[in-house]
């Protein structure tokens, strides 16, 4: 206990006049605690409490020898009124360093009256009860959280698995051979390498004819043709999904009969001289700058 600390007894008696205690001993008992037994002396203390004064001194540890005889005898009906002397303001303000004063304040905190009242109050019982219940609830929540994490991990693993499977499916479905086979079933053809020709900008006649032959593709007609061929949306396609049988030779690509009614946007002649109607976009190689042959085979290589 620091010299500057205000003892509980002193705090308890601060509201009462100093006459309740022997003023002569106040100075001697500065900084000392009143014996605990004095606060437990029957209903007298209770009565005092009801009157909100003076409060029983706190029990303190420490040697008994340092206490006054009056306190140890337990005969005092009222706690010793101990008042901490005030230091001169000038000394407090200038003499004591701020650090020391802060340390002293911190050391005095455990004896603060507010803290004392809180510690002695009955509110602790429900408070501790609530805290215990809170701990239990928290544990339950942790378990729930763990269970949730577990479920999430399991779900995450399942989703990852599903994702990997879907990726595999996408990769399989994006197989060029499969798409080419499907396209061939829809009447699209891949032009033979030699069948693509390029026009010079100087050849105005050919360019004029090329420009006049370009027109907006008719998507609805194409869709209706696919539907008629049993390959359109909503129709059950009989196209096989296996790949590997498509040929790059346009001449060997199968062309359904219905392709004869396809839009004549870009007629592509196959290498065998037959003309197959290709839908727009079916022949990426046959870009607008390319034209189709006039039926003569240009791509064959003499053996």
């Amino acid at each position, binding site marked *: 206990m620091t010299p500057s600390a205000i003892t509980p007894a002193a705090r308890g008696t601060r509201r009462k006049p100093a006459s309740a205690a022997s003023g002569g001993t106040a100075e001697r008992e500065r900084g000392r605690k009143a014996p605990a037994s004095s606060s437990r002396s029957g209903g007298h203390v209770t009565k005092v409490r009801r009157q909100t004064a003076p409060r029983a001194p706190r029990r303190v540890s420490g040697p008994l020898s340092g206490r006054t005889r009056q306190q140890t005898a337990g005969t005092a009906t009222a706690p010793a009124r101990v008042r901490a002397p005030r230091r001169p303001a000038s000394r407090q303000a200038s003499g004591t360093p701020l650090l020391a004063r802060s340390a002293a304040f911190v050391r005095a905190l455990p004896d603060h009256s507010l803290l004392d009242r809180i510690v002695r109050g009955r509110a602790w019982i429900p408070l501790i009860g609530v805290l215990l219940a809170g701990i239990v609830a928290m544990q339950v929540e942790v*378990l729930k959280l*763990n*269970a949730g*994490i*577990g*479920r999430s*991990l*399991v779900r995450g*693993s399942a989703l*990852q*698995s599903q994702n*990997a*499977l879907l*990726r*595999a*499916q*996408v*990769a*399989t479905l*994006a*197989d*060029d*051979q499969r798409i080419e086979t499907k396209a061939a079933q829809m009447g699209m053809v*891949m032009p*033979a*390498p*030699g069948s*693509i*020709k*390029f*026009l*010079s900008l100087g*050849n105005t*006649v*050919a360019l004029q*004819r*090329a420009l*006049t*032959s370009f027109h907006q593709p008719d998507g609805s007609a194409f869709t209706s043709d696919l539907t008629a061929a049993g390959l359109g949306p909503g129709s059950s396609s009989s196209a096989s999904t296996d*790949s*590997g049988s498509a*040929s*790059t*030779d346009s001449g060997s690509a199968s062309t359904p009969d219905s392709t004869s009614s396809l839009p004549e946007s870009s007629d592509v*002649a196959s290498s065998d001289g037959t*003309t197959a109607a290709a839908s727009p976009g079916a022949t*990426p*190689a046959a*870009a607008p700058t*390319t*034209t*189709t*042959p*006039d039926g003569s085979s*240009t*791509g*064959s*290589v*003499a*053996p």
Partner: protein
Amino acid sequence: MAAIDRRVGYIFLGFLALLAVAVTRAVYLGVIKAPTLQQAAVSQQITETPIPAPRGTITDRNGVELAISEPADEVIADPHLITQPQAMAQVVAPLLHMPTLSVLVALTKPHTGYSPIAREVPAAAAQRVMNLNINGISMTPDLKRVYPRSWEAAQILGGVNAAGDGDSGLEYYYDNVLQGQAGERKIVSDARGQAIAVDDVKPMQSGRTVQLTVDAALQDEVEQVLAGVGAQYSPKNATAIVMNPDNGSILALANWPRVNANDPGGAPASADEDQAVQFSYEPGSTFKAVTVSGALQDGVVTPDTELNIPSVLQVADRQIHDAENHPDETLSVAQVLKVSSNIGADEIGMRVGPQRFDYWVHRFGFGSPTRVDLPGEQQGIVLHYQQYSGSSMGNLPMGQGESVTPIQMATAYSAIANGGILRPAHIVQTIGGKAQAPPAGHRIISPTTAAEVRDMLRGVLADGGTASGAGIPGYDLAGKTGTANVVVNGKYSDSEYVASFIGMVPASAPKLVVAVMVDEPQGSIYGGSVAAPAFQKIVGWAVPYLGISPNPAHVDTSDQNPIQP
């Protein structure tokens, strides 16, 4: 009052007795049976499951997945716990698409508590088995290597073994980066079996993604072209390589016969080989470009140098003929390449001399691996000039007597295409998203020499050339045919040939080098008739696909209108 007290006392005694029983039981369970119960609790509540690490994905240059890891499960039986094996086998077998007998054998395996029923079972099928809740049947998560495009690039990709390690192809070559690190997960379950705590004791690390320089669409096209060659000429095997000569990246590398990567056992062992790097053959006339390049660089000839070509050339004990009989004639060096004159090539080689010829052969990378990042690369067989016999210079300059691989030839032609820098081919673009620096090249011939050779190789596809029909309208092509006899029992066969063609487009500044090699074609044997059409189809498809513009000089300016109005 006393009676009440007595009753209260009895009740108290009763409760006390019950408490004593409870305490005794607690002591029994908590002290005497504690170890056993603790062990049981641990085994029932705590599960440690491995987290299999998926191998890295292999993709093409555009991210198209060529090899991925797919979740699968291993279904395991503990025969000790199976009470009615026959009935269980009849239930489980259809779900796993297995014969009942095979399942029964696994369920009744003696003296073991671990008997795998099926491996790499699709997750859905394994889950259906688990839903049966059969005591003694469990599953372990596993992964299955899947090749979504089955047949595509199968020899390049290779495969993995049962343990999931790379076994062949790129799976083997890049196993250390594709291989992940398996993790371990500890799961604490409650009495109902629900996980209440999950802890990844050892985190799992997936393998890194390997992105190839290969273009899946082009690869597919090249494979289809080879399939057409295979169907038409029934060769022993065939291979084709498409390279970017500027950086040595392989855009497509196909082999025939094809192999289903998901079922490698379904093809003969020889089909699993990547012929592009593992097949050594005598190149034949395609080698003449090397001879001419060396001669031009040494300054012993120019493209216009006239050579006297006799009908037969005697070199030591050998008589050299051309493919077609002809009287004595005079051909320029360019014409020698155009008509693929063996005698002309020999004469050029002799002008170079054995020592310098040997230098150029090695300078172009023959006789040593190209260091392409594919496993099993052969280095070919090239004699040192001190080992030459008297007739060596009669056959070496025209492509006989040395053994090369298709990748060596494609790399050498790439050097001619890119202006004279020999760059090792490579097939991996990025690993784990990190770009791989292309291997450094070194200059072997001057840009002028390279341009002169390219210019001469144009003639091969021009009228009168050995591949005159392989041109593509609008494009300026260059290349060389090759038809080489196969050595059978130490002698050149008269019936077995290797037909090849190596070309580039556009000839002025090539963006693509395409090499096609067909081993022992049936029906036709010539490079110009077997391999050149394949080259034409590949290039014809590739140029618009890759956005290579036609050469205005080669665009048809005739008034003949090909458009059907």
